[in-house]
């Protein structure tokens, strides 16, 4: 009973209850979205986007505007810059993207470490789930509702394009539009999730769940639901660990997610 009592402790503190709610909301959507991100091999692009939006976050902190707005604008600017840098065929898309993203992170750090900057850089880099506001939670809830609806509506086109792009085109699906919609959802998810997990750790909640469940589920829907459930669970575990061990909350959640991914990859695959 005492062990159960200890597990319920975080739910009694207002701050930790909000943190639990935040990681659950973000995990529920990102864990499902991640299936398509990994299927379409967009993990590197997602990482670039999440790191590259740092200047937008810092500028929003400096200007006192909502971080969500800064994250959204920052992600958009990063996407444009990365797309531009990746086009240089002389060095290849990987190198171009790496230079662009490193430059953006450097710019963000420069701004954040300026003497007049009030916002602490480490919160933007590593997240602060314990510091989420009511609007942050509202944004998380809106992400789950709106994003979930979008994923449900896009399910058949996403499946058709992932399976056979030309065949999907012949059936009237436009792969470019479907991918653009997926990227828009990804940018939105990163912008919302970056509040709790920070620019450096947010990718864990998108990529780790599908990696963990991929070999153990039989359908796209199954992988999405399992990924969402696993992300929520790992988020709760991370907050629990942080509460009892006094570790950094964002980093604890990210590590719980990555541990789940490692376990899922190591376990023998499901046979039918």
């Amino acid at each position, binding site marked *: 009973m005492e062990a159960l009592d200890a597990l319920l402790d975080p739910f009694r503190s207002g701050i930790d209850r909000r943190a639990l709610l935040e990681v659950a909301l973000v995990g529920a959507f990102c864990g499902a979205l991640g299936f398509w991100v990994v299927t379409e091999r967009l993990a590197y692009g997602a990482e670039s986007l999440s790191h590259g939006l740092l200047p937008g976050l810092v500028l929003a902190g400096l200007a006192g505007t909502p971080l969500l707005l800064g994250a959204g604008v920052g992600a958009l600017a990063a996407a444009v810059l990365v797309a531009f840098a990746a086009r240089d065929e002389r060095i290849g898309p990987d190198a171009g993207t790496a230079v662009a993203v490193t430059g953006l992170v450097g710019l963000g750090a420069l701004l954040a470490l300026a003497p007049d900057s009030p916002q602490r850089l480490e919160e933007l880099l590593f997240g602060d789930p314990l510091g989420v506001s009511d609007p942050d939670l509202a944004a998380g809830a809106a992400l789950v509702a709106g994003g979930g609806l979008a994923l449900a509506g896009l399910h*058949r086109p996403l499946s058709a394009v992932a399976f*056979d792009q030309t065949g999907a*085109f*012949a*059936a*009237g699906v436009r792969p470019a539009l479907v991918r653009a919609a997926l990227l828009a959802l990804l940018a939105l998810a990163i912008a919302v999730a970056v509040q709790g997990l920070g620019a450096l750790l947010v990718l864990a909640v998108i990529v780790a769940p599908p990696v963990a469940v991929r070999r153990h589920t039989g*359908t796209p829907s*199954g992988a999405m639901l399992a990924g969402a459930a696993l992300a929520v669970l790992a988020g709760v575990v991370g907050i629990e660990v942080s509460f009892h061990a006094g570790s950094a909350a964002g980093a604890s959640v990210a590590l719980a997610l990555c541990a789940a991914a490692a376990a899922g990859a190591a376990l023998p695959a499901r046979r039918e």
Partner: protein
Amino acid sequence: MSAPVTTGPAVFADGLTAGYGGPPVLRDVSFKAAPGQALCVLGPNGGGKTTLFRVLIGELTPAGGQVEVSGRPAYVAQTERTRLDFPVTALDVALMGALAHGRWWLPPRRAERAAARTALERVGLADQAGVRFGELSGGQRQRVLLARALVQDARVLLLDEPLAGIDPASAARIGAVFDELRAEGRTLLVSSHDVESARSFDLVLCLHRRQVAFAPPARALDRATLEATYGRELIVLGGDGPARAVTVQHHEHAHARDEPGPRPPGG
């Protein structure tokens, strides 16, 4: 892209040129096929067969010339161009053909599911509906992709090497469905590597980066045309009669994995 269904050709190309930004990979293509006709597209690897299909689907914009297709054509890909690791069943794949009828944002309706099951039945895979696509044999996968095209219910079907390397039972079943589709007045464009199989078609289109011939098989499949189409890939077996038993190297041979000669010991 669309033409009236009632009269005129179901597929029509005039002076078609296509490419991927650089020099054209296909030029001077002019042919037509009527409803109910089956056209075999012959040519070597890189001859332009897939490029022609991508133009007819509308995925690739022609660099020049005219193309008309009656309605939105269905496409049957080579199975190796699909994602075998993607977790979908045979029924899921057949249902993808229903996307052509709109309402893509909603789950499949009962009628769509019924159409997909009927299509799987037509290709002889009713009992495999729940099996993962990646776990089916090559011939079965090809039949599932054909079922997807049947669900799409198109006037024109484009099939990219549907008979390459599949088991005889699958080939027979696919051939029977081809006959049914022709009887229904649908037009088939079937790309192939196999010269012998082209003899059963109404028309043959020979491509080698340009149009070499467009004629009924009796006229298109002479030795000079085939040499112009395939170049050194052509092998003529038992050469007594005129153009008898003509076949070509299969593309698998061109990049076979087994290197001839002994391997060094201990390597």
